[in-house]
């Protein structure tokens, strides 16, 4: 019995742990979406977290917890800096500006060879991530986001998502809340990047580009943003898909892209949609939270 699990783990540990980090990433995009923003920079924030923490552990021998903290703080600070001028733009501008920002981060990484290893990436990152790190991270983030949803902050996010002007007139500091969602999302993405980097012991700029950003978005949209479980389920499906459809591995991105289109067209609220499911089970209108 124990042997079976050992075997399973040695083959699939990376996959299981990737499920965890992908879930974190999907949740990070969920957070900004719940405030009505489409921020396409989370893959870049993941990269910033990954590189920051990896450089600190590799070159400066920082202990893991401190590196994790740095890996979350760095993207949050960057998010704050680029958020200041861009968040006051309307949703469409923000989406585009963050998309372009992702590219800038990639170029920056490519051009700072001595620090980041440039195009060749960073090799030999200490493999410090244990399975329980990932599990703990996912549980803590889920807990945090769930509590947030049930508070005035979560309500403010939802109000802003529906109608920014009306929300402002209710006394909600719209820009402040948007910045919170944005920076917090960046920190969670950074956490995922940190854990991932110390799992796979190698990171390169190509992992944090547009493809990855879209993949994360697909996970979140596929799962649906009506509840916290949606992004997690979406992450599970997208992560497992290439494993299940071995022949599709090369066309993985094509499939991801098409899934995004199909979901948007046919299942706009995503798979995990409490209202739809309640209807299925035959319950009535949704009650108050």
């Amino acid at each position, binding site marked *: 019995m124990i042997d079976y699990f050992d075997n399973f783990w040695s083959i699939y540990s990376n996959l299981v742990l990737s499920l965890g980090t992908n879930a974190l990433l999907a949740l990070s995009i969920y957070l900004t979406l719940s405030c009505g923003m489409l921020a396409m920079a989370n893959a870049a924030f993941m990269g910033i977290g990954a590189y920051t923490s990896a450089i600190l552990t590799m070159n400066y021998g920082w202990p893991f917890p401190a590196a994790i903290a740095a890996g979350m703080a760095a993207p949050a600070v960057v998010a704050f800096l680029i958020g200041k001028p861009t968040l006051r733009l309307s949703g469409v501008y923000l989406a585009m500006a963050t998309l372009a920002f992702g590219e800038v981060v990639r170029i920056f990484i490519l051009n700072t060879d001595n620090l980041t290893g440039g195009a060749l990436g960073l090799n030999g990152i200490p493999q410090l991530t244990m399975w329980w790190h990932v599990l703990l991270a996912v549980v803590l983030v889920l807990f*945090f986001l769930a*509590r*947030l949803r*049930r*508070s*005035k*902050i979560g*309500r*403010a996010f*939802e*109000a802003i998502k*529906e*109608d920014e*002007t*009306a*929300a*402002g*007139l*209710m*006394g*909600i*500091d*719209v820009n402040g809340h948007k910045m919170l969602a944005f920076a917090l999302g960046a920190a969670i993405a950074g956490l995922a990047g940190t854990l991932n980097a110390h799992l796979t012991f190698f990171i390169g700029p190509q992992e944090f580009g547009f493809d990855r950003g879209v993949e994360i978005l697909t996970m979140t949209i596929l799962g649906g943003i009506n509840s916290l479980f949606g992004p997690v389920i979406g992450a599970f499906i997208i992560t497992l898909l290439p494993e299940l459809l071995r022949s599709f591995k090369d066309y993985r991105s094509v499939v991801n892209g098409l899934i995004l289109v199909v979901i948007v067209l046919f299942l706009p609220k995503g798979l995990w949609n409490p209202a739809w499911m309640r209807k299925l089970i035959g319950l009535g*209108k*949704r*009650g*108050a*939270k």
Partner: protein
Amino acid sequence: MTDLLKLTNVSRHFGGLKVLQDVSFAVKPGTISGLIGPNGAGKTTVFNLITGLLPPTTGDITLNGATLLGRKPHQITRSGIARTFQNIRIFKEMTLLENVIVGMHRHLDYGVPALLFALPKYRAAERRARDRARELLSWMKLDHKADDLADNLSYGAQRKLEIARALATEPTLLLLDEPVAGMNSTEKTELMREIVNIQGRGYTIFMIEHDMRFVMGLCEQISVLNFGKIIAQGGPEQIRNDPQVIEAYLGREDDEVSVVAGVQE
């Protein structure tokens, strides 16, 4: 009695277009006042200026003597001014209760640690909010629908929900932008009663409305706006008989003119 809200020589220009010119009036605390005028006179712009969505080109707007100029909308709300919208802006995907609780945002006094660990401070504040929200909904006779989705409400009920939500911000001054538009006469009479109740609880109300019967029946002080300028100010009787006001409405909808002229009662 000192003025609660005061506009002094307020003008608003859009390029060459003079939307408001030299508008001055005051709202006394505890009263119900109204702003009327033909369509396009600039009434909603006045509201937008008061709530900080737009800056005036010239002039001053003060609340209890302190200027509101330069402040952001959410700051002005926190100073005690709440408003409803001409084209209803409730949060459709939330329940009625949630809509009203959003209005209490700034009064919920707890921080991140409290909400994270469901500390007593958080639980008490949330409970208070829910109770207060039900109370406000009951003022507008909507409490039996507290857990329904706002999107499912009738038009008239949505307007009333907006008022309940505005009250949740605990304002001193309540701005109502066409509160009875689209309502039938039963709903209008009911709302008249509810507004008098609200005034009785100490709120000051200032409304924009087209329905003359409604305005004349409720407002103690009425200002009339035409082409961006105030052409008359006074009580209902005074306004009804003011020749300039009658002329401004001439050629507009018939029953508006008749009521103003006192022919139809």
